[in-house]
C-alpha cells in the first residue's frame, strides 16, 4: 500500500515537465501520509519510461502499456488508472491540472467515490486529513479545503510545485496493469486531429508568457508580441478584449473566462488590467507591464513597469533579449 499514487503524464515518448513536479510533491507528502510513492504510466510504448519515473522517486511503477492508450481518451485511461489505484490503495492520488488531468481526475473520482480537489497550489496533512489550498474565483480568493474520504484525488496546478531532481542511482520495481479495455470500449471516438498552425505549449504550462491587449491596436501588430515571445523563449497570450474583438484565438485568453496561469515571467503589453484579467495572472512569479497609461491598474500588480508606447518599447526590448541569447 502506497501513501501517494501519482499519474505521470507523457508526451511524444517523454515524461512531461509536470511529471517531476507531481513526483516532487508526492515525495514530500509520502512521509506525513505514512508510506511510499507509486507512479502510474499509461500509454503506448511507455514502459520504457518507467526507469525515468523511478529516478524521480517512485517506489513502484504501475504500467498500462497498450495500443488502446496511444491517444488519450478519458474512457480508456480511467479504467487503467482505476485499476492502478485499486492495486496501490493510496491515501492520495495526484495528477497535474492539465488538459488531460482535468478530464481524468473527475472520472477517477466518480469511479472510485473519492473526494476531488482540483487545481490546488499547496497540499498538507492536518489531523490525518488531506488539506489543500486552492484558488477560487480565478484566484480572487483562496480556499482551504479538507477532505475526509479514504482516498482523495487532487490535481496540482502546473508550474507551482518544486520538481523532484532525478537520482540516476534509483530503480524501482515495475508492475503491469491489465486495464481490460479494448478499442470497442471507447464510445467517444477521435476520428481525426486537426493540427494547430503552430505547435506550442498550453498557456497553463508555459514558463514565460507574453500577452498583448488592446494597446496593440490591431491583429496586424501581433508580430511584435510574437517576436518578443520568441526572443524570451515564451508563448503568446491575450486579454479578453482582444479575443472578443477576434484579433486572437480564444485559447490564448488569460483571465477569469480564459486561462489562469502561473508562469515564471508574465509580460503584459498594452493591457490595462481589468479585474478578470488580473485574476488570471496574479500568481505569476514575476510580472512586467508595458503600458502607455501610467494609471493603468496593471502597474499595481507588476513587479516592474515601463510607462511607454508598446510600439516603441517592445522592439527595443526584443533586441536586448535577443542579444542575451546570442
Amino acid at each position, binding site marked *: 500500500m502506497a501513501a501517494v499514487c501519482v499519474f505521470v503524464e507523457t508526451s511524444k515518448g517523454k515524461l512531461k515537465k509536470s511529471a517531476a513536479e507531481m513526483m516532487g510533491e508526492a515525495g514530500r507528502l509520502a512521509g506525513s501520509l505514512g508510506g511510499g510513492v507509486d507512479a502510474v504510466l499509461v500509454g503506448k510504448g511507455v514502459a520504457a519510461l518507467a526507469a525515468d519515473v523511478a529516478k524521480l522517486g517512485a517506489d513502484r511503477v504501475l504500467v498500462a502499456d497498450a495500443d488502446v492508450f496511444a491517444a488519450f481518451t478519458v474512457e480508456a485511461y480511467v479504467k487503467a488508472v482505476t485499476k492502478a489505484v485499486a492495486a496501490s490503495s493510496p491515501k492520495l492520488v495526484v495528477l497535474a491540472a492539465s488538459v488531460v488531468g482535468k478530464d481524468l481526475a473527475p472520472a477517477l473520482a466518480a469511479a472510485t467515490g473519492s473526494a476531488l480537489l*482540483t487545481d490546488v497550489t499547496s497540499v498538507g496533512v492536518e489531523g490525518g486529513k488531506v488539506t489543500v489550498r486552492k484558488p477560487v474565483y480565478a484566484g480572487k480568493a483562496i480556499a482551504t479545503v479538507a477532505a475526509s474520504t479514504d482516498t482523495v484525488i487532487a490535481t496540482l496546478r502546473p508550474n507551482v510545485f518544486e520538481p523532484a531532481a532525478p537520482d540516476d542511482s534509483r530503480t524501482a520495481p515495475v508492475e503491469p496493469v491489465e486495464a481490460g479495455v479494448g478499442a470497442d470500449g471507447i464510445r467517444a471516438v477521435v476520428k481525426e*486531429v486537426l*493540427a494547430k498552425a503552430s505547435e506550442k505549449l498550453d498557456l497553463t504550462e508555459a514558463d514565460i508568457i507574453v500577452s498583448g491587449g488592446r494597446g496593440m491596436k490591431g491583429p496586424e501588430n501581433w508580430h511584435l508580441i510574437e517576436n518578443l515571445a520568441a526572443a*524570451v523563449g515564451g508563448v503568446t497570450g491575450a486579454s479578453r478584449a482582444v479575443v472578443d474583438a477576434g484579433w486572437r484565438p*480564444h485559447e490564448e485568453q488569460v483571465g477569469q473566462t480564459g486561462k489562469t496561469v502561473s508562469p515564471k515571467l508574465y509580460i503584459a503589453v498594452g493591457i490595462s488590467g481589468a479585474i478578470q484579467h488580473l485574476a488570471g495572472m496574479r500568481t505569476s*512569479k514575476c510580472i512586467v507591464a508595458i503600458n502607455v497609461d501610467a494609471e493603468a491598474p496593471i502597474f499595481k500588480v507588476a513587479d516592474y513597469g515601463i510607462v511607454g508606447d508598446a510600439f516603441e518599447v517592445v522592439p527595443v526590448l526584443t533586441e536586448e533579449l535577443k542579444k542575451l541569447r546570442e
Partner: protein
Amino acid sequence: MDLIVCVKRVPDSAAKIKVASDGKSIDRSGVEHVISPYDEIALERAIQLKEAAGDGSVTVVCLGPAEATKEIRQALAMGADKAVHVKDAHGARGPLGIAKVLAATVKDRAFDALLFGKQSIDSDNSAVGILVAQLLDLPVVSLVTKLEIADGKATAHREAEGGTEVVEVALPAVFTAQRGLAEPRYPSIKGIMMAKKKPIEEVEAPAPSGKLELAKLEPPPERKGGRIVGEGADAVPELVKLLRQEAKVI
C-alpha cells in the same frame, strides 16, 4: 431532439470578491450574479441545435439557492423550454457532491445530450460535467468548440493539447462547452415575456455528505507591485538588468 443543460449562478467576472465575516464564504451584497459564462455558451448551442432540428426541447437544470430563479428565468428567456430548479439551502458542496445531485436529477429524464460549461467561474473545478458522465456511465467530450447532432450521433470538436480533435460519439452523451462553441444571445423582449409563463419544476436538494470541508476562505496574498522602472524605450536596459539579476527569470 431533447437536450438538458446544467447551469450555475455565479458572481459576474467583473465583480470584486470580498470574503464575508464568517471567513468561509463571500460577501454577496452588491455583487451582480449571472449564469456562469461557459454554461451560457452550452445553453446557447443547445437552443441553436433544437431550433435547427425544429422539434424537441431544451431543459435547464440549476442546482442553486432560491435566488437562482433570476438566472433560470434568463435561461428561459434565451429560449430554453422548461427548467428544473434544485433548490439548495445547504450552501457549498464539493464537485462530486454537486455531480451526484445533478446525476440524480437528470437520470430519469430522456435526453439526447447533456451539456455543461467546461467549468464554473466561481469554484473553478472543471469537473462536474465529467463527474456526471461517469456517474451515469455516459460518454463525455470536454472542451467542445463545435457540436453537431444528427442521426443519433454527435460530432464534436474538442480543444485538446496537440490540436483540435474531431470526436464522434453515439447518443446520449455529455458535452462540456469551451469558448468558441457559440456566442450567447441577448434575450428578446418577446423571449422575456414568454419566459414568465414557462414551467419551473422545483425540488429540494438533499443535505451534502460533508466529505469536503471548506475550512477557510481568504483573499489572495497582496502583490507588492507598483515599481516603475522608467519611461519609454530608455528604460529597457534597466528592465533587462532587473529581470536577470534581481528577479532572475531570464
